[in-house]
């Protein structure tokens, strides 16, 4: 009987799924970069 190929062989991960917190990370990063942009302009000549 042929056994099922492992995850490593098939390159499939059972829980390689998207999660809302990842979107939060992306939004947070965009906001941080925007804040840094504002910061550098707010105090520049």
């Amino acid at each position, binding site marked *: 009987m*042929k056994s099922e*190929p492992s*995850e*490593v*062989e*098939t*390159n499939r*991960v*059972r*829980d*390689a*799924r*998207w*999660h809302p*917190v*990842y979107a939060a*990370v*992306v939004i*947070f*990063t965009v906001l*941080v*970069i925007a804040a*840094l*942009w504002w*910061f*550098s302009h*707010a*105090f*520049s*000549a």
Partner: protein
Amino acid sequence: MSSLDWIVVAVYLAYVIWDGIRMTKHSTGVDGYFLANRSLPWWAVGLSVMATQLSAITLVGTTGQAYADGMRFIQFYFGLPLAMVILCVTAVPFFYRAKVFTAYEYLEKRFDLRTRTLTSFFFLVSRCLGVGVIISAPSVILSIVLGWNLTATVFAIGMTTTIYTVFGGVQAVTWTDVKQMVVIFVGLGVCFFIILSKLPEGVGLTDAMHLAGATGRLKTIDTSFDLKEKYTLWSGLIGGLFLMLSYFGCDQSQVQRFLTARSVDEGRTSLLMSAFVKIPMQFFILLIGVLVFIFYQFERAPVLFREDTVKRIESGARAGDFAAVKTEHDAAAGARSRAATEYVRAERADDGGADAARDAYLAADSQVKEVRGRAVALAKESGDTTYTDVNYVFPSFVVRHMPAGVIGLIIAAIFAAAMSSISAELNALATATTIDFYKRHWKPEAPDAHYVAAGRLATFLWGLFACFVALYATSLGSLIEVVNRFGSFFYGSLLGVFVLAVGVRRATGRGAFYGLLFGIASVALASRFTEIEFLWFNPIGCIVVVAAGYLISLTDAPRPAQTG
């Protein structure tokens, strides 16, 4: 340093050693010693991830860089949060579920033994010399600033770390990292408030920001797309993304951190902690450097921050010229201080005189820079042709202007930053040596205790070797540069191998092996014949490995799993 400072440093060192060694009882068995039985909470792993990345040279180097050049360096980290998300979706569950000890072990399961051995070998070569540099850089700085013996400093940092890593394994690494991060945060926080309190009366944080902004030091975003520019929005987002993917996803010193987590989800959360905290933390560190710059607008700054160089010039033929430059520097700094005070007053008064006051302040600042440039030229003429004192600004400031006790705390924070990186690297080197070489090639069947003993011996020998590399690092000169360049050649290419492994089902072992060699060669050529900045080597190496590896794989028979 006062007795109180010595006591603070000694208490820190004694506590870290005790804290690390007491983890010995949890480090029985191969799983316990190398992976903490996959039992650690996400917050401890997350702090360990950040502590490993934050080395002493990052701490003193980036504050110095902010002092001299501003906060542009922060763009280096822009790719990190996105890299963490990608790794949470791909690498973390892959490595965790594959039940591996090293990232390279996975490559044997996916490709073949020679790909595993080659990547692990490259890791050992680049990292063992890299650890020497991590020990050497802060040791040289502290020995010059504090007048300590270099050998004693190297062994104080290197061997204390080695001792607790040998006994406590990865448990000691993680739990001491947690405490070391606390020491770093407390040290930096105290430093921040003391600098603020030392600004002249009537100069607050907002005034300080106006002064720093006028000199361009608060410019954090550069949107120009120039491959020859080191830190831009694009090099940070694209080059930084590839570098962080490679560092956190393929470097054993980081992969081993999330492999110790209780579950896949806790491993993911530990990485996401860095995604949220790293950029704000680095902003804070850079801000301290900017505040040191502001502090020296009102206090007399040394014309050169390296005391050893000053002494060499003063005992040489150009001593008279140097004395004249110092006098001129003091006069220019005094004029700048008055101009800065006037600019702050004008900004506050908002009476229309701010523009003129700012121009006068910038002219005075340019005058100081011009005079300092002549002092640096004298330093180069005195024998040190590559003289730079950026890394000496912060430690020199701390020793000159911080109160007793706080100096000890900040020296302990610098020690903590160094030791947290060294311990993780030593533990990763020992794991790769034991699992990828000793167990795989020489002794596949032995009791757990045997491999733990081998791991302890490997940790000790790597620690000792790193201390000797650190001692000779200053005289190795160009070899160290070769080591650092080799690391940058390797990172993007290694990432390419893992992209082939995880993302390209058609990829074969032969394709990955020769693709890796192609990638390293292409980055070496790009480095030799172009002026492209190093962050771009990471996408170049990765893309070449994936393209070459895929094409070579097409000449092989498809993998059996695809046929079913």
